């Protein structure tokens, strides 16, 4: 069963992956990081990504219609001219507020594939 590090390393094996982190969006703390971070600083990246994740998670406009206990939002995708940022909320059975953050080079990365794989990794991380 994968732990946090194994999960992040698996994310780094996706084509084009530059860096990955597991971040708590309430505090902005990175609980695990691997690879590079934009600007070279995982802590700053985690705090900034946490802002974005929190906004998406808390504003009703982005929530699914049915409230079945799952996180209101599955993922947040940001693209710029050279990379993608994929934030995947982790659905835990205990109370938490974490997401996986994958930074992906645009040339080599496949956003659709990465989105599916990151979702699977997020599930495996907490469900085994």
């Amino acid at each position, binding site marked *: 069963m994968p732990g*946090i590090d194994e999960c992040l390393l698996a994310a780094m094996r996706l084509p084009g992956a530059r860096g990955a982190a*597991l971040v708590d969006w309430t*505090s*902005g703390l990175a*609980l695990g990081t691997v690879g590079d971070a934009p600007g070279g600083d995982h802590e700053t990246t985690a*705090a900034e990504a946490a802002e974005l994740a929190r906004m998406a998670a808390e504003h009703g406009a982005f929530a699914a219609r049915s409230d079945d206990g799952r996180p209101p939002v599955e993922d947040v995708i940001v693209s710029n001219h050279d990379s993608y940022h994929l934030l995947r909320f982790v659905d*835990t*059975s205990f*109370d938490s*507020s974490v997401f996986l953050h994958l930074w992906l080079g645009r040339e080599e990365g496949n956003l659709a594939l990465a989105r599916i794989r990151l979702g699977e990794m997020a599930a495996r991380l907490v469900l085994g």
Partner: protein
Amino acid sequence: MTLVQIPTPPPLPVRDKTAGRALSPMLTRLAEERATGILVREHGTLYLAEGRVVHAESPFAPGLDVLLTAHGTLASAAWQRAAARASGPLRAAELLLDEGLLPAGALELCHLDAVYDAGYFTLAPSSTPGRFRYDNTPRVGPLPSVPVVALERETLRRRLLLHRLWPDPAADGAPLIRTDPARAAPVTPRQRAVLDRVDGVRTAVGIARNLGRQAFHTLVDVRRLAAAGHVTPLAPHPPEPRVTAPSPLPPPPVTDPDIALLKRLRDALEAL
């Protein structure tokens, strides 16, 4: 049309790496010498192995057992069985990991959450000096550990985050009551869960335990609810009974310069 529904809280702080502040010289020394032992402070206990925090406990933060059993992640009976065979909560968690009773990721995540949460309260300013006992029992095990300096930095960052959300720490430790804000700002689902448990008796820490949620996460929502005028502490500045959570920040500025100076002096002495 400008309808801003949820007041946007200030940005999450990023640590100022140039500041180089430390919470206490003792912690810096323990980190430098990669100490192994148990640090007992007024508001909690840190278990160190080779300068890394392997486990933390505080009466103000729900333990791993509460976090895991509150929402049925783990049956209470399964935790009790493991706890009965182990010398402490950390060993119990390792047993659960060995036996595959919980996914490794879930357990690691919960464990880290609990360490940072209890660590935050343990490193709060205290009125008595901490005691460190060299002891070779704590060891780096299969669950993740946190360098002392990383916990220290994160604790300072968390204090700053709370301060930016709402600078008055009174709501952290006192029983909370609901108030009717003049303009009812909507609350988020996680804040709603906190607000529903505000009953004039529970403190933020009590609400956290009831929710099976990290105490610091609850403090974030309580400060945001206080800023929005949804909750207020029952007594604005209660005396310091043993049951209240520690105030992580000095009280709001006082106009009398002598009193302000004395308070700063007291805080500086406490931080030693």
